[in-house]
């Protein structure tokens, strides 16, 4: 943070309390809980939950194996489709994915707890570092994967199992992407993201180059020359701006930067925390920065979002999580001005509404909120200064890379997936699916 006035300070709560606040959001199931929950699954035919899972996990299949105490077989069923089944079990918004489709909703309005069961099956494998996969015989092909987030690692792992050699390039010191630097801390405790990365890499055949940035340290053109194929899983590099010169007011921060700092902190009680926080945005990032600020000891946290609850990127569960953590969500409000008076930021807000055509317009009602810190959480975009000219030559849509159904880009020999491509929902599980599809496509391509 740029400067730290008196009411932005560490130790708002003592360390024990903070540790408690950042313990598991959804504690894992015990064996007996898992067996009882597994019994609730009807073992549906052509299961709707499987169709709803972006990675297409055979959900009744893995649950049946939990039921028969075949936990390793269950994990194998999951990892076969989704190598980050462990992380997804923690972070998937299941209420809008697999669990939303569960037929139990029609029966008793309570789906099978698929996410928790998935975690029950996968945790022991990562905890014990059990290898479940074998590499096919060497293909002699070499593939470059840029970005070691969910998309890149999923692609790298599948390529490695198919017998190819892979080099993963990542600009950060640790792999994992937003699993390591973005996801809310209480969703992935105990250094899970790194343990998962290590487990994924343990398949072998994946060489990792950290601290190297595409655009700054190497170019796509070089990769295309040196490798048989290239996969880009570079996420979204830079935060969107509010515009109108609002971004330069001191005390206006990027939510994802603060979250990254929080995720990397050894002792969260040392983090500077404001007394009052305003968050601008309506997605997962907005909820996460708001809830985590509150759990770090902020006294007042408000989220301001310019549309209604249904349009928020954050699921109803996430919105509710914010509310039960004491965060106030203000819908249909848009910041139009930010002023700093001494240590306090004044946020001028304008009410919003939809006109007959459905376009957002000012309602004419204005109001003011005060805060010590304002977090921007209005989305990220692909292009940043480091990426420079690297995006040239790609077909782009809304600033993201266009791919076909096999994740191939408009440039021959280059595939892409995850948040950096257009048209999907910016979830961990979708990034994993993209990486998997790309690997399968690359494999077919290289063998044909």
């Amino acid at each position, binding site marked *: 943070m740029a400067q730290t006035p008196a009411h932005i300070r560490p130790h708002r709560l003592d360390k024990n309390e903070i540790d408690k606040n950042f313990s598991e959001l959804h504690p894992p199931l015990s064996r007996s809980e898992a067996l009882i929950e597994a*019994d609730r699954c009807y073992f*549906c*035919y*052509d*299961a*709707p939950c499987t169709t709803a899972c972006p990675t297409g996990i055979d959900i009744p299949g893995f649950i049946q194996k939990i039921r028969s105490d075949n936990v390793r077989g269950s994990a194998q069923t999951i990892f076969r489709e989704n190598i980050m089944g462990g992380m997804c079990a923690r972070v998937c918004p299941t209420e809008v994915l697999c669990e939303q489709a569960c*037929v*139990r909703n*029609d*029966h008793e309005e309570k789906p099978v707890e698929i996410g928790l069961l998935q975690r029950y099956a996968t945790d022991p494998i990562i905890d014990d570092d059990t290898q479940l996969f074998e590499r096919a015989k060497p293909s002699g092909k070499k593939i470059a994967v840029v970005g070691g987030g969910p998309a890149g690692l999923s692609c790298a792992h599948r390529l490695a199992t198919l017998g190819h050699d892979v080099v993963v390039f990542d600009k950060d010191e640790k792999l994992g992407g937003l699993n390591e630097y973005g996801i809310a801390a209480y969703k992935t405790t105990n250094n899970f993201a790194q343990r998962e990365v290590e487990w994924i890499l343990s398949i072998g055949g994946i060489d990792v180059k950290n601290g190297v940035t595409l655009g700054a340290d190497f170019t796509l053109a070089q990769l295309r020359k040196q490798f048989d194929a290239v996969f880009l899983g570079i996420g979204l590099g830079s935060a969107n701006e509010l515009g109108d010169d609002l971004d330069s007011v001191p005390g206006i921060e990027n939510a994802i930067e603060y979250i990254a700092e929080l995720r990397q902190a050894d002792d969260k009680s040392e983090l500077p925390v404001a007394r009052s926080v305003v968050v601008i945005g309506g997605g997962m990032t907005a909820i996460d920065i708001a809830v985590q600020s509150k759990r770090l000891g902020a006294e007042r946290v408000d989220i301001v979002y310019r549309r209604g609850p249904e349009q928020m990127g954050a699921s109803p569960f996430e919105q509710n999580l914010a509310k039960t953590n004491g965060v106030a969500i203000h819908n249909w409000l848009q910041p139009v001005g930010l002023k700093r008076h001494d240590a306090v930021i004044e946020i001028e807000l304008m009410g919003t509404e939809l006109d007959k055509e459905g376009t957002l317009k000012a309602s004419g009602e204005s109001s003011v909120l005060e805060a010590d810190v304002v977090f921007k959480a209005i989305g990220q975009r692909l292009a940043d200064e480091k990426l420079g000219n690297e995006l040239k030559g790609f077909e782009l849509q809304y600033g993201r890379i266009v791919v076909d159904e096999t994740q191939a880009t408009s440039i021959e020999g280059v595939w892409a997936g995850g948040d950096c491509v257009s048209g999907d929902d910016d979830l961990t599980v979708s990034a994993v699916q993209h990486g998997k599809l790309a690997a399968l496509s690359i494999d077919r391509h290289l063998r044909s």
Partner: protein
Amino acid sequence: MANLTSEFLGIRSPNPFWLASAPPTDKAYNVNRAFEAGWGGVVWKTLGEDPHIVNVSGPRYSTIHSNDRRVIGLNNIELITDRPLQTNLDEIRQVKRDWPDRALVVSVMLPMNEASWAKYIPMIEDTGADALELNFGCPHGMSERGMGAAVGQVPEYIQMTTEWCKKAASIPVIVKLTPNVASILPPAKAAKEGGADAVSLINTINSIMRVNYDTLTMYPTTDGMGTHGGYCGEAVKPIALNMVAEIARNADTADLPVSGIGGISDWRDAVDFLALGASNVQICTAAMVYGFKIIDDLTDGLSTFLDDKGMSSVAELVGKAVPSVTDWQYLNLNYVEKAVIDQELCIKCGRCHVVCEDTSHQAITHTVDGERHFEVIDEECVGCNLCVSICPVDGCISMRHLSDGEDPRTGQAISKEKANWTTHPNNPMRKQD
């Protein structure tokens, strides 16, 4: 409120629920607790000769569970009473004195010689017990010594032993039958021939529960070795019901009073036994799983049920369903049913489709007009009831009787005439005029 008072062989008890001869009736302490809880009667844990037998000091029980550890079946290798005869006799005498309105029957198992029966039966009668029950059913341990199921599996032995007992006894004699036989009728007839006043059934079923997946030995073991034991609890009820019904509908045995046992855990199970011909019921496993308090649901549920049916006593229910039991060959082959799925209730799990598709008659759709939709194809449905049986939603799939028109499957007109296998043209042994 219907009157639950029950009379079995002239023995009155406030309700038809007796505790079967087993650990719950092993001694005065347990029996007193049972009577305090409201049980109608007990059959005392089987007495034997002195010196008394001994039990193992390792596991006697093991169970089959559902995943939430509801007990579905129980296996045991317990023998008969392991306390001195006199201790039991003294306690029986005292309990009968303290609870004159409850039924107190004493179970007994003695060697295959008349002298033993002549010696011990009068001693037992002297306690004031209401009746005797002969344990010809224990399938483990005692059967190795020529008693229990070793007697119950040989009709001649049943008859002979029953005769010895009847000669020595003045109180009623109930013969408890083992289900470990090919047909229950010869043992039941033998008991009757031997003079038994009634039969009770079933005792436990010979069984091994499973193996231990770590040691690959059978489970459970005593010091590494195990033995087959007797199986009981919920899982055995259908086996017991069939045997009770067989006795009730067979002309040779129909007049033999039956005390129904095997897997009764709630009042509905009791209704099953009573309607299929038992005059009262005995319970062991359910009490061993939940304790004596289950008697509240048993009595309350049965009494409410009788009220709803407009019946004023248990006796009115006894045997009600027996006339509906027959041999397969007499079933009406002209009667046609089709499954129907209630689309309002259907949750679209697809199980009916896949089981019919994989294992039966391909008679349920999966997709209709591109939508996930489950519907019975009358042209294929044989009316087997599989989908009804496996649908997770109660009442969602039911069977519909086709009373006229034609069966879309066979293309044949529905006949209102009854016709069964005995006259069917495909039956080489059919009756011909």
